[in-house]
């Protein structure tokens, strides 16, 4: 929303030491967030008023003219393509150095001396768009420059003196506009207007607040030629409906001051009636609507008078009712809207003429032939308005205000203001009907009991009583001493006052003492509150074991495992999954995805990690990445939906996904890199992972990981077509753990215990075996370790195939550690042990001992 400083000044005094920027800061600190402070004349430096004193044809171009312009102290000759140039015309003249929006588009460009088709040009006669003044000077024809002549009359303003004066001064573009963040006034229906902002600022500054010049409601009753009857069928959806008919209207442009203000606030001026309605909405916050009287009234004597004469007697029946299913209306924007039974309509008794509080209908639109109008100033149910505008995808300035819960009392104020403003542009206009006013509302203005001690405790500052009361009164609250408390409570509780909320704050914004605490705190100013650490009982926070566990995993993976942690989106799409051979059907779907890439909730971290590989494979030779994150499964989890419902939320387990990828020098290098990382992770968690072969249905090598006899994961070595399909050109190994499962396996492991060193020294020997290549290392190693009681540890250090070995054979070289707890082993004892081991391995696996 845009707020004009000049408009605010209609209602409050801003002391001269408070600059526009400072006022913006005050608004931000105390009332609403100001996103920007715009100085309207800011871009008009070096643009002055000039008068065309001579026009000559351009020697080299038919459509261009040479204009000599008097800008007071001097004259300039410029080339101009304007179609409406005439001698004596007052124009907006941009001097060299002015900043212009070229052809009304793009960034501002500094004007340079130029030569156009061989003729020098020292400046420019500007069109409205080139100066950003389209709203003030609506363009009627193409190639039209601003004609300032009409703006220069009456004569005292015109004449020679005006020439050379800055355009901003002459047009009164001295206004400053505040761009308000609408989100910051979601809860304040009263602030959606200039008067509301002024009222709040009156308390902030502080400044007296000028009351609106209003007449008694009675003045709105015309000598009714038109019998206006309003029937509200659903008073819950329409707490108040006021209407009055006004005759003798002449549709024309609004006065310049009004157009200027509307334009400053981003509202395009249209005609005097529409403009008045918009003006009052911006000034007071109450949306209103004007219907063409001839379209909604039945004439009993004469028909409508396109000539602009007064109406004869007639009847106008307005029925406010819910729409019937399937009913339609064409709105002002020309679109046909399908309605349903939840939507509220304004009808002429038969046909809809407006969607209540959202948008008027085209059929009753005010146009240039309009001579009489019915002005609606009503209040509608905020929820109903919001639902309707959401369903129709139609958010208007009106619906935005109604959905915030407007004060029904505002209807009357707005109606009076409209009538008096119409009379300014159409002095002959007259009320021609009775005043319809159907109301059915009750506001809860309190009083709220406010304990001042409690207030100060809440804020954490000693705000003097007088100050609190002044703040509340400045904001329109009424305060009075509360009834005396019971003697028991006296002294313990502080002074309590009764606070009655003003109607414009009583629709839902203010209802409890906390709301009043906010009023006191924000106007008093948070800068006046001193920070103070809370005084509480010391208590160590409960540990979050699972989160600490995850941090341990991260420390291992980003530490010794030297992996890079990535964060991925939780969303995937069916196409992406299909390429990997994953069925998308069971995935939880978003109802309103942003893009087609992100339509489903992930069930695994792997697809996104593979995308990371594809994205990085060109730049990075070795990719080692992991992610810890939640996945979403369609089964019911443990947490409930809350609010007394026992229904459960879907399962959202945390997973750990790991990927090693890159061009391989050695076969299966990435598989073994990843397996090594998994083994290291197990070791650091005090676990042992067992890997056993496992063939997945889709092909590709794989191993399943078991720990404590529980399958906890699988490592896949991927080199298949599906990965190439997914754009991966390098070898890739992946694995995924369920963090909670892993945590569960780890928990009984407890704390690592110290193991004392054996007293007697160990002996190390190497042994190499040639075996059939189908024998699994895991099995062989297990047997080897158990082959002799003196063996403490065995470690594989070489794998060899080919050469002197026969086909289908491989060689494993182990380093064996021998030891005895009671004595130092002799060489002979170890030799003997080696011999026994060789025999055992030969017997079990046909392994042949090899020489080094």
């Amino acid at each position, binding site marked *: 929303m845009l707020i004009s400083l000049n408009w605010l000044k209609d209602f409050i005094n801003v002391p001269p030491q408070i600059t526009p920027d400072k006022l913006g800061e005050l608004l931000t600190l105390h009332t609403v967030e100001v996103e920007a402070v715009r100085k309207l004349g800011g871009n008009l430096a070096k643009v002055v008023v000039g008068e065309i004193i001579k026009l000559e044809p351009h020697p080299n171009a038919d459509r261009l003219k040479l204009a000599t312009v008097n800008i007071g102290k001097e004259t300039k000759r410029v080339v101009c393509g304007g179609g409406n140039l005439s001698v004596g015309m007052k124009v907006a003249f941009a001097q060299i150095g002015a900043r212009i929006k070229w052809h009304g588009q793009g960034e501002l460009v500094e004007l340079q001396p130029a030569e156009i088709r061989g003729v020098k040009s020292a400046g420019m006669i500007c069109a409205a768009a080139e100066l950003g003044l389209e709203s003030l000077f609506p363009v009627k024809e193409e190639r039209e420059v601003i004609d300032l002549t009409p703006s220069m009359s009456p004569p005292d303003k015109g004449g020679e003196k005006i020439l050379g004066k800055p355009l901003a001064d002459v047009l009164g573009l001295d206004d400053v506009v505040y761009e308000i963040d609408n*989100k910051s006034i979601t809860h304040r229906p009263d602030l959606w207007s200039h008067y509301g902002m002024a009222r709040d600022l009156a308390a902030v500054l502080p400044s007296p607040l000028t009351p609106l010049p209003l007449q008694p409601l009675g003045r709105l009753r015309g000598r009714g030629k038109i019998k206006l009857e309003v029937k509200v069928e659903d008073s819950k959806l329409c707490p108040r409906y006021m209407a009055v008919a006004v005759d003798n209207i002449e549709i024309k442009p609004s006065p310049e001051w009004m157009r200027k203000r509307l334009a400053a606030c981003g509202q395009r001026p249209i005609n005097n009636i529409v403009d008045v309605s918009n003006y009052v909405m911006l000034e007071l916050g109450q949306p209103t609507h004007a219907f063409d009287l001839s379209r909604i009234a039945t004439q009993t004597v004469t028909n409508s008078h396109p000539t602009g004469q007064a109406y004869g007697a007639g009847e106008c029946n307005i029925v406010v009712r819910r729409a019937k299913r399937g009913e339609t209306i064409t709105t002002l924007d020309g679109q046909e809207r399908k309605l349903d039974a939840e939507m509220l309509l304004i009808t002429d008794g038969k046909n809809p003429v407006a969607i209540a509080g959202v948008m008027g209908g085209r059929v009753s639109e005010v146009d240039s032939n309009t001579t009489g109008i019915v002005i609606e100033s009503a209040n509608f149910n905020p929820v109903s308005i919001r639902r309707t505008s959401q369903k129709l995808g139609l958010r208007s300035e009106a619906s935005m205000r109604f959905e915030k819960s407007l004060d029904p009392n505002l209807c009357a104020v707005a109606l009076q203001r409209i009538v008096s403003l119409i009379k300014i542009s159409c002095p002959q206009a007259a009320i021609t009907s009775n005043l319809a006013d159907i109301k059915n509302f009750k506001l809860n203005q309190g009083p709220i009991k406010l304990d001042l001690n409690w207030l100060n405790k809440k804020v954490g500052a000693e705000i003097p009583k007088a100050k609190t009361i002044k703040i509340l009164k400045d904001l329109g609250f009424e305060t009075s001493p509360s009834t005396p408390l019971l003697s028991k409570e006296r002294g313990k509780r502080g002074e309590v006052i009764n606070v009655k909320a003003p109607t414009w704050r009583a629709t839902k914004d203010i209802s409890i003492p906390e709301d009043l605490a906010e009023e006191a705190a924000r106007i008093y100013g948070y800068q006046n509150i001193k920070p103070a*650490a809370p005084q509480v009982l010391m208590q160590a926070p409960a540990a979050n074991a699972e989160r600490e566990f995850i941090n341990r995993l*991260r420390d291992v993976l980003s530490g010794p495992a030297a992996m890079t942690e990535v964060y991925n989106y939780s969303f995937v799409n069916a196409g992406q999954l299909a390429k990997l051979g994953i069925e998308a059907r069971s995935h939880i779907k978003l109802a309103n995805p942003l893009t087609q890439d992100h339509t489903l909730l992930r069930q695994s971290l792997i697809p996104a990690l593979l995308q990371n590989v594809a994205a990085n494979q060109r730049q990075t030779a070795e990719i080692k990445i992991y992610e810890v994150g939640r996945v979403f499964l369609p089964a019911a989890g443990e947490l409930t939906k809350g609010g007394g419902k026992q229904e459960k939320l879907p399962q959202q387990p945390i997973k750990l996904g790991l990927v090693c990828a890159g061009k391989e020098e050695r076969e299966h290098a990435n598989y073994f890199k990843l397996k090594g990382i998994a083994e290291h992770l197990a070791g650091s968690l005090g676990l042992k992972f067992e890997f056993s072969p496992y063939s997945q249905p889709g092909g590709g090598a794989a191993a399943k990981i078991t720990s404590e006899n529980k399958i906890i994961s699988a490592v896949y070595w991927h080199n298949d077509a599906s990965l190439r399909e997914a754009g991966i050109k390098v070898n890739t190994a992946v694995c995924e753990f369920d963090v909670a499962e892993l945590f569960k396996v780890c928990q009984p492991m407890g704390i690592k215990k110290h193991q004392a060193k054996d007293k007697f020294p160990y002996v190390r020997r190497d042994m190499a075996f040639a075996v059939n290549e189908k024998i699994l290392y895991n099995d062989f190693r297990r047997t080897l370790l158990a082959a002799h009681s003196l063996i403490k540890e065995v470690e594989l250090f070489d794998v060899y195939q080919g050469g002197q070995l026969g086909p289908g054979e491989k060689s494993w070289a182990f380093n064996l550690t021998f030891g005895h707890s009671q004595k130092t082993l002799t060489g002979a004892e170890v030799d003997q042990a080696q011999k026994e081991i060789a025999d055992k391995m030969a017997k079990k696996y046909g392994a042949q001992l090899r020489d080094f």
Partner: protein
Amino acid sequence: MKNKLQNLKQEILNQLDKAADGLALQALEKKYLGRKGELTLLLKDIGNLPAEEKKAVGKVANGIRAEIQAKLAAVKQRLGVSQADKFFDATLPGVKVEVGHLHPLTQVQRELEKIFTSMGFMVLDGPELESDYYNFEALNIPAHHPARDLQDTFYIDHKNQQGEYDLVMRTHTSSVQVRAMEKYGAPLRCAVLGKIYRQEATDQRHEHTFYQIEGLMVDKDISAANLMAVLQTMFARLFGPGVTIRLRTGYFSFVEPGVEVEMSCLLCQGKGCPVCKQTGWVEMLGAGLVHPNVLRFGGIDPKIYSGFAFGTGIERLAMMKYGIDDIRLFHSGDLHFLQQF
């Protein structure tokens, strides 16, 4: 062959005795012991001898080699020639240590966790796919309240019996407030860190997926001044003791009063620059005193207890801290970006 070897040995030993400096010694080493040195070539010839002779000559040769090596070492010592006199480039790269990387958001989250646990806050997480109830209703944002517009919401394609979407991707970590109150009661101090979602088109400054920290403290007589002190501590620990904060009025349905908290601009030290839109202040987080309705939803009596809550985007903190100018980098999986941290 044996003689040849003996002669050469004598020649070498004599020459070595005469060597006057390191340079001369180097020349001798090259002449006799280099790859094409006289002794080297002679020793190579041994390989061509018949087997029985090879053994005997080999033995002699080994003795000679050892003798010469010993002499060489002695001469080196005499001349004061040591290994250190060889040119040594100390600037050659060291052996690379392979390092891993924690995501920058993990690092900032850990810092935050440390700060808040040090002040006695529990660290919580909570579900990301959340019910409408905990994400909105229990936070004093009923259905069809305009405050729902403040957060563009991803809904799950699932309707309840009333035909309404009742599951959302949580739009803030505030969704854990009432869950925590229900589970732990009062007094309560917790920090919730985690992933949140907004149905919002992405650009350099906007993401549909980001991280938040929520702080919640419920106890007796908790005030706005308390909130200020805790936040001041957090910002000073994150960005250095020089930063100051200021509060201005703000609106969030689950707090009353509500405030926006701004931090003095790190770039210009509050003088005004494009980053802070010339104001000297940067908007950092939303906060306030917990709305009594929210306490009631959490089963806590607002007559006895009061509390404060605050929430902010962790990306914003990380961007300020590390000078990151595009929020989309965090979820890009771009290793060039991630491996800087």
